[in-house]
């Protein structure tokens, strides 16, 4: 399997502050990868290192097989930043003219189609565009180059639901064309919908990564209802990630041995045993709280 991004023990320190603390992650080729993490967890720092905007302190980072900083590799990728800021003094037309020559894979048909679909006014200065329009322009500049890999930092930030949906659809189309998409996000529901692979980062380290459906099928919430609940310690067996008591219910988050753990219920005279799937938001919150 080809990897688009590979980091090994990636560390970044800004003076006293350690933003990335041995980050080891892999982005597989093809598909859509969601990069989840809280504010300050290191998402933007990671992306900036991949683009060589900032330099790593130690560890390794490979982009399309080459060390970050390779100019040639940047001919094959696209990037949309969180602020979606583009040169304010240029018009829509001018910034397209400026960007096009850098990419030999640029397709003018895509350019015409997207200008039409996104309804971008050619002669308007970037400084007078709304954030939604700037996002669409930024998307256009990236989609026309039909890159192998597209990095987006909080793409739906500041967008209304209509534009956000348009944006997600464009990403799906691009993925269908073979581009690997990597986007960081706070919107967990968005990640659950569109991503097929996730990487969760907290305090500069990866705490969860893998195909999304594997993660979803691995974790279960087991709720056991008792008349007289045993202490939580009774349930700390292999495979249990978290146990909590809420009234008469023992609630267990488990990643392995689901059946054995569920069997504890009848063993300990539980009134009811419920095994349920776990939504990503719930899982994310639990995992982050663990730290």
């Amino acid at each position: 399997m080809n990897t688009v991004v590979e980091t090994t023990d990636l560390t970044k320190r800004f003076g006293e502050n350690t933003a990335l603390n041995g980050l080891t992650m892999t982005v597989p080729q093809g598909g859509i990868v969601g990069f989840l993490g809280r504010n300050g967890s290191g998402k933007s720092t990671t992306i900036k290192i991949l683009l060589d905007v900032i330099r790593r302190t130690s560890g390794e980072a490979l982009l399309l097989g080459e060390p970050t900083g390779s100019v040639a590799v940047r001919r094959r990728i696209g990037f949309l930043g969180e602020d979606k800021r583009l040169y304010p003094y240029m018009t829509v037309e001018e910034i397209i003219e400026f960007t096009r020559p850098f990419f030999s894979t640029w397709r003018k048909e895509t350019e015409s189609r997207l200008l039409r679909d996104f309804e971008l006014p050619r002669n308007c200065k970037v400084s007078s565009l709304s954030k939604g329009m700037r996002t669409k322009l930024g998307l256009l500049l990236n989609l026309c180059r039909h890159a192998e890999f597209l990095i987006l930092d909080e793409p739906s930030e500041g967008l209304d639901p209509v534009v956000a949906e348009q944006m997600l659809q464009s990403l799906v189309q691009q993925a269908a064309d073979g581009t690997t998409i990597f986007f960081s996000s706070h919107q967990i529901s968005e990640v659950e919908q569109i991503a097929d692979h996730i990487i969760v980062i907290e305090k500069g380290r990866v705490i969860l990564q893998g195909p999304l459906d594997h993660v979803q099928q691995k974790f279960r919430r087991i709720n056991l209802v008792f008349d007289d609940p045993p202490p939580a310690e009774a349930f700390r067996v292999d495979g249990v990630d978290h146990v909590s008591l809420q009234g008469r219910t023992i609630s267990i988050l488990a990643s392995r041995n689901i059946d054995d753990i569920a069997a504890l219920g009848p063993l300990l005279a539980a009134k009811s045993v419920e095994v349920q799937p776990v939504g990503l938001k719930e899982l994310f919150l639990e995992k982050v709280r663990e730290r």
Partner: protein
Amino acid sequence: MILRLSPSSGVPVYLQIVEQIKHSIEIGALEEGDQLPGIRPLAEDLVVSPNTVVKAYNELERDGVIRLRHGAGAYVSESNSPNSRRCRIKDASILVKNVVEKLRDMGLSDEQSRRLFEAELMEEVSCR
């Protein structure tokens, strides 16, 4: 094709697609020989990753529910015609009725019978 997905439920999206397509076939919304949307159009329509649609279609093919004709699209298989499925379900419900009657004759309460069934089914799950 009308599919309603709940991406935040914790159930993998590809499985939801599989289940809903199977359901569509069961209720006759899709019949044998019908062509399913292509991977790309369905992904765009649902706004999900194309890989997810691929996974769903592969699973459906593995289960014999659809056939993937290389380069020519996906089609509902013959063996899953609604009639044969309805027949099987009809036969199964007769079987269940007979067993429940027998258990009642043996003197078991419905509660006891239910627990027996659950235990049997759970054992099946853990053996898989």
